[in-house]
């Protein structure tokens, strides 16, 4: 009976990722009228499924097998508390990373249980969290400079068409990463504890993510970029594509990193190219605070919850 709890919690997380992260993938395309919401959701669902099937194994293994020794209580407490945190943060539109919440919850709960924690894997993950936004910053800056040199000299109507194709491409990369990294992080513990088969988890996870996108993501289709710097479609593409390539790289390394934080890194990179004054540092401070507080809070809550409940 207890086995059903983490599955339900993971289902909530998948649904939440769908409702929140469609904006990561297609927020700019929808916002600038290049894609309709319905089309974006269908493309998202398809590429999320493709992402988790083709490239989700490494991240699932890191979170589900390498990080901590799991038992059903650890998975239940970690995923339930993560799902509550993710749903609440989505509701309040806070940029909380689901990776950070899940990883820190698993570590917190395992620590309270006295189960073994693979410090080497944990350090690798934390280093990835530090490095990934900077990687996205550098890649986005390169993408923007290349675009400026190659594309902006072309005739306007042609550039507009290219831009739509480019935004769609970067959206697809992010959607693929959402499956290969974000959803894989949520489903890793369930698959490696053998509560669901890898294929079933991928299928139902993608389906729930799709429904989450369909049901709620219209509410949060606002690019996170609006808050940081005034973003035109080109800058949006550069930030998104740079972040997408970066997350793809980390996915290949099996590291669960946040697409949202990478996009933020990309936006800052493009903003810096346009001048430091274009960046709203107040917003950056809030995001950085959330970046530090999310894993700490998740760790503490799960640690205390485990001590209290078990």
């Amino acid at each position, binding site marked *: 009976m207890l086995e059903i709890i983490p599955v339900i919690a993971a289902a909530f997380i998948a649904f939440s990722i769908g409702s929140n992260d469609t904006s990561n993938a297609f927020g700019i395309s929808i916002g*600038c009228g*290049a894609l309709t919401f319905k089309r974006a959701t269908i*493309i998202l669902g398809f590429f999320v499924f493709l992402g988790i099937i083709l490239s989700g194994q490494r991240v699932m293994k890191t979170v589900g097998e390498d990080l901590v020794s799991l038992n059903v209580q650890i998975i239940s407490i970690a995923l339930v508390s993560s799902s509550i945190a993710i749903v609440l943060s989505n509701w309040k539109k806070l940029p909380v990373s689901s990776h950070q919440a899940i990883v820190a919850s698993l570590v917190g709960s395992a620590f309270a249980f006295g189960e073994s924690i693979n410090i080497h894997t944990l350090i690798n993950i934390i280093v990835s969290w530090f490095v990934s936004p900077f990687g996205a910053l550098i890649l986005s800056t390169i993408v923007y400079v290349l675009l400026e040199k190659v594309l902006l000299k072309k005739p*306007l109507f042609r550039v507009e068409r290219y*831009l739509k194709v480019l935004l769609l491409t970067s959206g697809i990369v992010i959607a693929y990463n959402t499956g290969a990294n974000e959803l894989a992080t949520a489903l890793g513990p369930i698959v490696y504890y053998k509560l669901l088969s890898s294929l079933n988890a991928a299928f139902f996870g993608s389906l729930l993510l799709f429904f989450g996108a369909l049901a709620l993501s219209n509410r949060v289709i606002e690019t996170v970029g609006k808050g940081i710097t005034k973003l*035109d*479609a*080109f800058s949006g593409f550069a930030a998104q594509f740079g972040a997408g390539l970066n997350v793809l790289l980390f996915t290949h390394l099996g590291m669960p990193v946040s697409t949202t934080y990478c996009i933020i890194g990309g936006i800052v990179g493009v903003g810096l190219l346009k001048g430091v004054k274009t960046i709203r540092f107040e917003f950056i401070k809030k995001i950085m605070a959330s970046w530090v507080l999310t894993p700490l809070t998740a760790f503490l809550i799960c640690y205390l919850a485990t001590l209290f409940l078990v």
Partner: protein
Amino acid sequence: MFGKIKKLVLGGEKENKVIEKMREHLKYVKEANELLKVMIEKDDKDLAKEICEIEKHGDVIRRDIALYLYEGAFIPGLRANLYRFAEIVDEIIDEVEDTSIAYTLIPKLKEEIKKDCLRVAKINVKMSEDLIAAFECLQSECELKDRTLVIRVREEEVDRIKGELYKKMMKMDIKNYWEGEMLSNFIRHLVNISDLIEDAADIIQILNVSLS
């Protein structure tokens, strides 16, 4: 199959419709200016009716463009300037219509005035062609700066002719107030056409950098 996927994902039909409508709109600008030139050249006041018809078509095209833009053609960052362009092109046709109506209300032009008015009308036709060429730079590779520079140079030429025309008008014997008023109206509208064409060229330049 690929076409269907492309259409499903990217659309693009509305954009093509807008571009075609804009081409048609600009074609009417040239046609109206050519008719005005012939009207002055041959003193054929009946041509004003044809110009008025063109103006009506121009209005319909402007409304169509607005509709397609409202329905989501092009990314939002371009829509405002694209509509502004359609509005200015429509204003050019309106101005040609006003010029032709004013022409029907004045007596036969004196030869020295007619010569200058014809020069301006001919320049307006050339500027219409230049505007079409400038617009095409948004679609295919060409040097937009060169096209808009030609428009600016021609507009300055019209300004010079305008000064000469006013000097000649001041020396004219005017029989009554309305004759003078109508002639003044005609000249004012005629020389304003080039200003509006230059404004339209400026919008093309703004459009060209609006994604940078």
